[in-house]
Structure formats: structure tokens, C-alpha cells
């Protein structure tokens, strides 16, 4: 039951932008908080895994990021759509996701004995500084047809808007100009939705999204996996390690892997989308390991999960029980395989059924989607008592996104997501060395 409950919540979370794993777990809280430890973990694992599969579907078919880490799928999915090959993109994403999940399990089995040492390296400031610098460098080099000046400006813009609000290392706010709603920074949802969604919808306005997508033979995505197996492997390995970085887990996984693949194979959308999707899923599994092995939550949704686990009798300090916890993760693996197979079925053969709403006229869908996004911004803003501010933010960033629609704004969005982390990391590196 918890398996199915989590899967159903994962489908909704994947289809609706702004409703991620955290919001799903909050909505499920009244139902599952009294359950047993393993049931809660199973439910969480199902939500988190399915959302990675399903989040790709709206990104590829209609240009809406179902999840914050679906941006590479959104950008590359548009290229497939131009050639009426969205079905192939979705099929490849589903297969790559399954393979990514399988590879991370194999990596875990091989490295489980040295996981503690590995984790302590990955969470260090020095490692993060090197990793983040490499990612920024890749963002500068690979996007917008290698026009590094444009990318640099976009990254600077992203960092600028990301730094607005409370500093991550000092007790004051930057650039809030005395406006109270800015003292806590721009909202994630209005910025991502504003910069990416209207421009993506605008570009698709004259196209019929999935309606004219070419018929797909079931072997085509499988053959693509065989042909691009190096991208799957590369994406899964990058995703596994980036998934361990607190706070940014799957966002870093998919974007780092995508940036790496863009550098290696700039003209191959297939390789890029496959690498990003396999990284997504491998990152999702590895991001759960610090919690399941050591009792250390590293994402917002895991903090909530941790609370539920404690209340259901889980010991707070897990460092003395690592061996038992590794055994526990092994017991979860069959369920993880099952949920990934379910994800494959939902996100590939059944993807059209999920998108039945998108059979409606494009103009109608676009209007509805934009209205939904405004409502979601208002809803998410209302949780912070800032509905109006979030809607205004969305409209402002939508204008910027539309004005800059000929550029790929992913470097700006990614820099926005990492800005406060970057501030903290580089400031600490400075303190350590000077």
C-alpha cells in the first residue's frame, strides 16, 4: 500500500511543476506519520524514484519542468520536439532512468564498505569548491553555442538574483533595498517558472507538441541505450557522486552530467538527455544513502522524512549502526528495483495516458498552463504569506525569460540555485587558507 501510495504521489509530483518530493511528503504526512519505519522509507523512496521518471514527461512534451532537475530534459526535449520525435526522447529518458538506478545500486554494492570515507570527502568544503568550480566552468564553456561571454553574463545574473536576501554566512541581507519580501530572497518557483516556462511555451506555440510525434518502435530507445552506453555510464557515475552533495543533490547530478556531456558531445541531444536522466535517478538513490546509513538528511524532503522516522522509533544517532543500516539498504533494493520498473512503465508506455490533458488545443493548453503556474506561484508564495510578491516575481522573470528567449537561460538558473552555496563555500575556502 505504501509502495502504491508513494508511486501515486510521485506521479502527481512529477507532472505538476512546483510540487516536488517535499510538498508530496507534507501532503502525505497525515497518512504515513504513524506507519512503521520501513513503510515510511518505502513510501518516500517510491515518491522520490517515480518523480524522477514522470518529471521528464511534461519537460519533453510541453516544455514544463516537472521537477527542478528536469531542466536538461526540457532544453533537449525541445530539440526532439522540433523533429516530431518526442516519443523517442521520452522512451530514452525512461530507459536511461532505469539504467541509472541500476548502475547506482551496483556502485553502492561495490563501495558500501568504504562509504563513510567517501561521504566524508564529498561533504567537505574543498571537494564542493572544486566540484562547483568545475560545473561553473562547464556552464561557461558549453551553453549558447560556446559563447562564453554570454554564459558568463547569464551566470553573473543568476548569482546576483540568487544572492538577494539573507546571506548564508553573515547575519545580514544583500540587495533587498529595504523591501521586506526580498529580505528572504527570490522564490525558487517564480524564478525557475518565470525564466524557463513562458519562453519555452512561446517557442512551441506554433507547434503541435505530442500530437504529431512520430510512432515509435519499442526497440528504438533500447537500441539508443546500447549505442550511447558510455553516456549512461558517465551520467550514472557523475550522478551518484553529485547526489551526495547536501542541498543540491539531483539538481547538481543532472546539470553536472548534462554539462559534461554537452562538452564531450555538443551536437548530440540523445547523449545529453540520456546522461542527464541517468544521473537524475542515480543521484536520487545516492542522496538517500547518508540518511539511511548515518541518519544525516541532506535535502529538505529528507529532513521531513527523518522527523517521521524518529517519531516512528528510529534511533537518532545511526553512526554506531552502520553495518546494520547497510543490511537494511540491501533489504530495500528489491523494492527499489520494483519501483523503478513501475516508473519505466508509467513514464514510457503510459506517458501518453498521463498527458491526455495535452490533447487539447495548444493555445488552450498554453493559457491553462500559464494560469496554473501563476496559481502555483501564488500558492507557494502563500505558504510564506507572499502570494502577491511571488506572482510579481514570476511576471518579472517571465518578461526577462521572454526577452532573452533566443538564449539558453540554464546557466542563469543553475547559478541562481547555487548562489548561496557558492558564497558559503568560497568564503570558507578563503578563511581556511588566509
Amino acid at each position, binding site marked *: 500500500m505504501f509502495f502504491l501510495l508513494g508511486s501515486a504521489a510521485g506521479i502527481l509530483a512529477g507532472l505538476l511543476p512546483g510540487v516536488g518530493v517535499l510538498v508530496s511528503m507534507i501532503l502525505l504526512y497525515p497518512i504515513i506519520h504513524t506507519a512503521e519505519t520501513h513503510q515510511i522509507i518505502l513510501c518516500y523512496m517510491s515518491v522520490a524514484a517515480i518523480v524522477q521518471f514522470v518529471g521528464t514527461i511534461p519537460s519533453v512534451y510541453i516544455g514544463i519542468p516537472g521537477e527542478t532537475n528536469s531542466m536538461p530534459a526540457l532544453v533537449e526535449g525541445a530539440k526532439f520536439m522540433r523533429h516530431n520525435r518526442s516519443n523517442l526522447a521520452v522512451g530514452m529518458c525512461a530507459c536511461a532512468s532505469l539504467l541509472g538506478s541500476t548502475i547506482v545500486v551496483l556502485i553502492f554494492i561495490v563501495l558500501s564498505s568504504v562509504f563513510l570515507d567517501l561521504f566524508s570527502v564529498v561533504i567537505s568544503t574543498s571537494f564542493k569548491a572544486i566540484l562547483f568550480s568545475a560545473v561553473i566552468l562547464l556552464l561557461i564553456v558549453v551553453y549558447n553555442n560556446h559563447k562564453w561571454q554570454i554564459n558568463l553574463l547569464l551566470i553573473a545574473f543568476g548569482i546576483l538574483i540568487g544572492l538577494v536576501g539573507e546571506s548564508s554566512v553573515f547575519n545580514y541581507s544583500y540587495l533587498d533595498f529595504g523591501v521586506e519580501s526580498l529580505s528572504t530572497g527570490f522564490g525558487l518557483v517564480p524564478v525557475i517558472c518565470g525564466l524557463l516556462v513562458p519562453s519555452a511555451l512561446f517557442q512551441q506555440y506554433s507547434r503541435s507538441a505530442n500530437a504529431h510525434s512520430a510512432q515509435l518502435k519499442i526497440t528504438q530507445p533500447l537500441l539508443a541505450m546500447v549505442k550511447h552506453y558510455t553516456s549512461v555510464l558517465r551520467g550514472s557515475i557523475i550522478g551518484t557522486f553529485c547526489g551526495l552533495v547536501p542541498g543540491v543533490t539531483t539538481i547538481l547530478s543532472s546539470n553536472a552530467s548534462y554539462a559534461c556531456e554537452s562538452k564531450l558531445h555538443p551536437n548530440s541531444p540523445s547523449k545529453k538527455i540520456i546522461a542527464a536522466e541517468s544521473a537524475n535517478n542515480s543521484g536520487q538513490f545516492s542522496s538517500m544513502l547518508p540518511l539511511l546509513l548515518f541518519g544525516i538528511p541532506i535535502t529538505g524532503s529528507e529532513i521531513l522524512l527523518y522527523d517521521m522516522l524518529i517519531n516512528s522509533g528510529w534511533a537518532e544517532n545511526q553512526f554506531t549502526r552502520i553495518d546494520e543500516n547497510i543490511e537494511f539498504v540491501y533489504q530495500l533494493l528489491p523494492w527499489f528495483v520494483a519501483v523503478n520498473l513501475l516508473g519505466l512503465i508509467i513514464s514510457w508506455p503510459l506517458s501518453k495516458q498521463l498527458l491526455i490533458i495535452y490533447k487539447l488545443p495548444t493555445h488552450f493548453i498554453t493559457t491553462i498552463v500559464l494560469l496554473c503556474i501563476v496559481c502555483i506561484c501564488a500558492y507557494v508564495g502563500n*505558504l510564506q504569506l507572499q502570494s502577491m510578491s511571488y506572482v510579481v516575481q514570476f511576471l518579472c522573470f517571465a518578461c526577462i525569460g521572454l526577452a532573452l528567449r533566443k538564449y539558453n537561460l540554464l546557466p542563469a538558473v543553475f547559478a541562481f540555485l547555487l548562489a548561496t552555496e557558492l558564497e558559503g563555500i568560497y568564503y570558507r575556502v578563503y578563511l581556511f587558507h588566509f
Partner: protein
Amino acid sequence: MKIFALLTLTLFSFLAQAEPLNIIVNGSPGGTFFERSHMYAEILQKSGYDVNLINAGKTLQAANLFEKINDPTMMVWIDTLSAIRPLEATEENFVSLEYSAPLYLCNKNGKNGGTVGMPKTYVFGPIQQIGKFKPIPYKNTGAVRDAAIAKEIDFAYLNQGKAKTLESAGFSCQTVPGIKQHAIVIAKNIDLGKLAMAVSQAQNNNDFVNWLDKRNFYRQYNISRLEQLDLVLKSQDLWKNAE
């Protein structure tokens, strides 16, 4: 018809009795602020208050909101934040002292000084007497704990919950002398004495007691509200004056 009228009357009279109360929820899901707020909401709702939860997210936003709001409102707070946020306990808003807990300094290498990781919301002063430290600021106590595990800092300066985690990972932790955290409840636009009684009853609820005991938080039994306030004001001054 008579029964319907009676039921309607009962319902309206019940609603008329229920006193409205906003509870500002700050902090992240799973954090102590978040949990405490939700426990109070549940228990106070049962004891007759018409509770409305307001999610404020970050502590800065919660402090701003509390200052501005004109309706009956309560919020959980901690005195350490009064040094850096525009909100502190006063005679006009203090409801109850919930628990006290020491802060800890944890390390693994037996050094007497070096780099010390600390949340940006903590003040550095109290640990300066213990050794020669170079402060390294982190976003929160979770990040400090991770930095200690990654061995990038010599000492970790954090709260009781995270210190216990580090102890289980082989760290030795000592309490920081002379200073404690005090978790409190504050409110405005409401009868503080009446609310203090309801809050005190909530704190004696089994769920609440279990929650506090599980985390080894120390409750101040048998002292009056004014004595509690006196304790908190002194602690608040210590935090504000600490560099």
C-alpha cells in the same frame, strides 16, 4: 426541527467560545521550531483555541511578521536569536520558558585550539574563553556537523541534538560554560496569563513530554512565569552582549 435548531445553537455557541489564535510556524519541516509549533497547534486546538497556522519559513521573516501582526498570535522562539534578529522576549510578549539546553564544543583530535565551525546565528564570544579559535561560519548546525565529519574543522560548536550525533561518530563533546539556549513561547494581542496556563498544560501533555525527554532537553519545573522571564532576560542579555 427543534433538534436541528439546538444543534445549530450549540455549534454557534461553541464557535463563539473558541478564541482565535494565530501560531507563526518558522523553521524547516523536521526542525525543532517546526515541530514545537505544530505540537502546540494540535494541543491548543483541542483545549478550545481556534488555531490558525501561519507558515513563515525563515526566522527573519517570522520575526518581521510577529512584529507586524495585529491579531492574537503566538510563536515559539529561542533566546540565541535575539542577538541577531529584531525580536526578543519582553514582559509584554513573554508566555513561557519551554526548555533549556547547553551548547557544545566537539572535537576528535584533542587539540586546544584551531578552526571552529559554528552556525552563523551563534555568537563567538562564549567559546573564546576556552581556547584560541578561528571561527568558520556555516548556514546551520547541520552544516557544522557535516564539516566536522568531513574533518575540515578542528572543533564544532553546535546544539545538543547535533552534538549527540557527533558523539556517536566518535567525537568528544564538552558543554560551553556560562551560556545556554532557552526555548520560549512569545505572544501578542492576547491575554498572556491565560495563554501561559494553556501553554503550560500543553507542555505537560504526554506527546510533548516524550518529545522533550527524547532529546534530553531540560525543563524548568516549579518556577513562576516571572521567574522564567527573569532567567530568559538574563540569558538574552548574555547573548546580545557576547561578541
